[in-house]
């Protein structure tokens, strides 16, 4: 039971993350959606690590969490930076660069 | 080492010029003159030691260059390339003399000029397809810059057009070279020619067409010719001279050296189209030239017309036709080079090239008139001058195989007379336009740059064997090969 249904759950998390990243306007909202995607992947790894008894996969999930932290740090730094230079935090407000 | 030395002359000159400060104009000019002069002497030396009767490539040098791909630095001359080398060296030297009209950025100019000469000479000397392609492309950049920097009119546009057109053509050629290499694992032209008949027909046809594209744009063949009038008109005089005199010949040379020997069956298959295009070039070019009012543009279109004889002669696949086509390449190089020099002489003084604004200059500038009449007559194919020999041989060579195309082409000869005489009439004859009452005649330097060309045109017209005996053996052999007899190199 868990494999199929948890897989379904991770798919749903993944696609919700995708949906969020496409629709949220606030840059931090986008970051939140990305965390959903990462969690979906991590869930998968843990699930199948358990299924196959694979140690490295669980470690992989560990690294995903760590990298997610780094990514969040970098993302938030950039957003704070943007809020100062461009005076906005909305992803669709920044379009100086185009064409 | 003779050929490498020949290539080194302009190359060393270029490096020297790059080392000189840009204010030392005199020194730069002298170096350029010396370098082109040395190249001319070198090529004459080649002529002196060349053995016309031998079928082998002479003065051959072969060094491994990129062994992994079987690429060699192979250079050599035979009866097909020697005339072109001579032509290049001669025109480069004379156009260098005529380069005094360049008054700004001389250092860059002469450096590019010499680089151009390296490329042109290399193209004719190379016996390795890769090397050939490299030199072929090396020619592009200096000419592009020459037109763009020192040209007139819509120079940027023309330079661009020239660059892009020719590059597009050569890319087709590049792919063909690659395909050929992958089939044969060789870039050696002589070797490839020897295996020409072993390639299957479909492959030959495909590759012939690809090479044709590359060469046709350079020649240029209708309908790929539209870069030519623009580029010729807007280039500075020496640029036009080399463009018309040498660069167009690279395309024709490619047919002799590569397309025909390597793809004999493909070439024969393409013959009808070739003859047809030759005919269109001749007649169409002549008609369009007839309607021009810009002197330089007229000469440019006359080149389109004249290069048609090269195609026609080639398509004939006879000794006469090939000799004629080859002869036309040399002769047209000299004549058109001279014509562009003459246009330049006039333009330097009058600052206009509009034929309708002249008139009656014959009284004012008799020496110029004499030169102009002479080269116009040569251009319209007057017997006794080199153009006639070439056109006659090309026509007679093609007539047997492509009767009606040749017949129509003969019409082009009449139209040639019409537009050339139009030039003479509009520039020299009629009442003197008072605007030019103070026009000075040609200077000694200008005469010096034109007189050798005049002598060449006359000598070849009176005694064509001078050139024919150099090229005949090689051409006959290639034809025999193309028509199916074993290759003997």
């Amino acid at each position, binding site marked *: 039971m868990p494999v199929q249904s948890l897989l379904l759950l991770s798919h749903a998390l993944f696609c919700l993350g995708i949906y969020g990243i496409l629709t949220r306007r606030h840059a931090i909202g986008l970051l939140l959606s990305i965390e959903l995607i990462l969690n979906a992947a991590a869930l998968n790894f843990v699930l199948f690590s358990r299924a196959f008894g694979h140690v490295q996969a669980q470690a992989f999930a560990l690294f995903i969490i760590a990298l997610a932290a780094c990514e969040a740090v970098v993302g938030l730094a950039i957003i704070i930076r943007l809020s100062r230079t461009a005076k906005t935090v909305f992803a669709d407000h920044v379009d100086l660069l*185009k064409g | 080492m003779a050929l490498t030395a020949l290539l080194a002359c302009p190359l060393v000159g270029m490096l020297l010029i790059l080392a000189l400060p840009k204010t030392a104009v005199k020194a730069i000019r002298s170096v350029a003159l010396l370098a082109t002069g040395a190249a001319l002497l070198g090529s004459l030396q080649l002529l002196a030691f060349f053995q016309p009767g031998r079928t082998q490539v002479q003065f051959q040098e072969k060094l491994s260059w990129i062994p992994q791909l079987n690429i060699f630095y192979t250079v050599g001359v035979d009866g097909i390339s020697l005339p072109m080398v001579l032509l290049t060296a001669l025109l480069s030297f004379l156009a260098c003399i005529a380069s005094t009209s360049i008054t700004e950025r001389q250092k860059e100019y002469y450096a590019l000029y010499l680089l151009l000469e390296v490329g042109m000479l290399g193209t004719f000397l190379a016996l390795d397809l890769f090397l050939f392609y490299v030199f072929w492309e090396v020619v592009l950049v200096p000419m592009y810059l020459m037109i763009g920097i020192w040209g007139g009119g819509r120079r940027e546009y023309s330079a661009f*057009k020239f660059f892009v057109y020719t590059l597009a053509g050569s890319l087709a050629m590049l792919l063909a070279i690659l395909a050929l290499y992958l089939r044969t694992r060789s870039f050696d032209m002589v070797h490839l020619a020897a295996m020409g008949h072993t390639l299957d027909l479909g492959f030959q046809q495909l590759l012939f067409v690809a090479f044709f594209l590359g060469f046709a744009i350079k020649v240029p063949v209708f309908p790929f010719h539209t870069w030519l009038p623009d580029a010729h008109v807007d280039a500075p005089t020496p640029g036009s001279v080399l463009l018309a005199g040498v660069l167009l010949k690279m395309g024709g040379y490619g047919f002799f050296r590569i397309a025909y020997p390597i793809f004999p069956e493909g070439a024969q298959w393409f013959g009808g189209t070739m003859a047809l295009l030759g005919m269109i070039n001749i007649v169409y070019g002549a008609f369009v030239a007839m309607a021009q009012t810009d002197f330089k543009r007229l000469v440019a279109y006359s080149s389109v017309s004249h290069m048609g004889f090269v195609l026609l002669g080639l398509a004939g696949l006879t000794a006469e036709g090939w000799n004629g086509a080859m002869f036309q390449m040399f002769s047209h190089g000299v004549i058109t080079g001279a014509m562009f020099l003459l246009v330049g002489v006039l333009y330097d003084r009058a600052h206009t090239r509009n034929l309708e604004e002249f008139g009656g200059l014959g009284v004012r500038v008799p020496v110029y008139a004499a030169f102009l009449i002479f080269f116009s007559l040569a251009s319209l194919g007057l017997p006794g001058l080199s153009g006639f020999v070439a056109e006659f041989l090309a026509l007679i060579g093609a007539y047997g195989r492509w009767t009606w195309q040749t017949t129509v082409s003969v019409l082009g000869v009449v139209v040639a007379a019409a537009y050339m005489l139009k030039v003479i009439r509009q520039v020299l004859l009629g009442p003197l336009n008072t605007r030019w009452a103070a026009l000075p005649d040609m200077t000694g330097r200008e005469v010096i740059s034109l007189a050798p060309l005049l002598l060449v045109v006359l000598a070849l017209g009176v005694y064509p064997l001078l050139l024919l005996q150099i090229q005949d053996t090689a051409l006959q052999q290639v034809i025999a090969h193309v028509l199916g007899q074993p290759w003997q190199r």
Partner: protein
Amino acid sequence: MDHAAAPAVTLTLPQLGWIPALPLLAFTLLLFFGRRLGRFSPWVAVAALAGALGITLSLAGTVFHGHRVAVSWAWLSADAPVWSIGLSVDGLSWLMLFVVTSIGTMIALYSMGYMHGDPRLSRFFAYLSLFCASMLLLVLADHFLLLYVGWELVGLCSYLLISFWFEKPEAAAAGRKAFITTRIGDTGLLLGILLLFWTAHELHFSQLDAVRAHLSPGLLTLISVLIFLGAAGKSAQIPLHVWLPDAMEGPTPVSALIHAATMVAAGVYLVARTLPLFTPESLQIVLTIGLLTHLFAGTVALTQTDIKRILAYSTLSQLGLMMVALGLGAAPLAMFHLGTHAFFKALLFLGAGSVIHAAHAQELGQLGGLRKTMPWTAALFFIAAVSMSGLFPLSGFWSKDAILLAARHDHPWLLWVLLGGAAMTTAYIFRVYLRCFEGTAKDHHGATPHAHESPMIMVLPMAMLGLGAIGAGLAGSPWLHHPLFRLLGETHVHEGVDVPILAWSTVAAALGLGLAWVVGVQQRYLLPPALRPLGSQLYRLAANKYYVDELYDRFLIRPFLDLARGLAGFDQRVIDGAVNGAGRVGWGLGELKAWFDQAVVDQLVNGLARTVRGAGATLRWIQTGIVQQYLFVVVMAVVVLSALLRR
């Protein structure tokens, strides 16, 4: 290279080369040192021509014995025999050599007087020398190609000399017209040469008999008609005759030498030379064209008022007559008439030149009564006129009668037509003579009364030509046993004078003379009143040269120029812009309007560039700068890719 078909012995004689080389040398000298030689430059030309004449005469003995003199060398190929060219002299070419060198010398002498004081005197003699050299080359050639070389070179010289006074726009235009018109004919010759080469692989004249045996009649007809096209261009036969009257814009000695005596006769020489190639069918064409030209030009000559133009049409007419003779297959007769015509027509032109030189007028209306002031000129002109009219026993009689005889032999009806032509000849030439030299001097313009006799340097050569006009015909007369025909290898000659022909031609001449007097001088109407409107219409038609020039302009030249202009436009718009079409596809989007304007303004782009740039501009429009739209593209790409790949 030995061509064994020559009549008897072929002697190799390198000195032959000197015949064209001497005038060529003179040309070179005059070209480079002309200004320094100044007044002496004419002598260089005269000396060169006289030298050539001397060599020609020295060859006479050999040639009259039926030998051939030749020299040859390799030209276009070191080893293919067909491409070795050479010079050779046989009877036919010797005759031409003699005509060219002798008349050339005379005219060169005459020109010294005529061109006296011209600022480009040396240039004139340089061209004249070059012309003689080319003409001699043409005549001496033993190979089609070499003949073609000479053929084109004489055309060039003709061009240069017609437009010698190039400040006059008419002269410049006339020269160009002459060159291009003849060049059209030359294309025929060139094609004939090409065809001959590809069918027979032989271009030597000495081999033509052998060629004839090899080729099918149809092919021969085609080749010969093509060759005749060249001849017709040079000899100004219908329909390529239009250039010759205009060519009179050149100096009169030029008209005399080139456009009367020698170059225009080259067409006749060519046909005579290549007669073995002509089949009955092609001869029929030659005959028809010749006859048409003969009559057409005769009628036009009757109506013109410019003396040089009248002479020009007269030349056309006489050349037509020669062509008729050729059409009858009688090359020697044609050559005979060519020889005599050269003398009397040259003399007529020189006479006209003398008149123009003296009176500075060449319209009949402005001339009259010159006999009193210019007795020598008048007398010599009279002799030439009589000779041309074919009155016994001057030169013209012998040659014309021989043709009449041949015509009667082949086609009796032709005799009567030719007699009509002869009457016209007399009529127009005496119209000129009578109105120029007889009657009273005209008052207006005050030109004629002050006329004076030309200087000796002009009269003397005219006198020499006068001797020729009187006596040259004897060379073909039965009195001296036809030395000329023997020279030309003709064995079947009519012995004795044919009295009926003599009588008829005299009647025709008398009729012509009467017409000249009554209509030409007294200006009376001979036609009944009912026919007068028709008559004047016909007159106007003839006076306007049958509107041929206008027709050509309307139907050939203008369409030609339009075509040229059209093609030039086509080249710029269509060929150059061929790729633009594809570019237009991308222009639909309104977004691109600004870009389009920019692209049009920006000269940097053309056809292909426009297309590609259009695509570029469209694609950059996708790059909106809104990051979530990019992300959407990513997601869509992933969806599509995964769906596609999963299958």
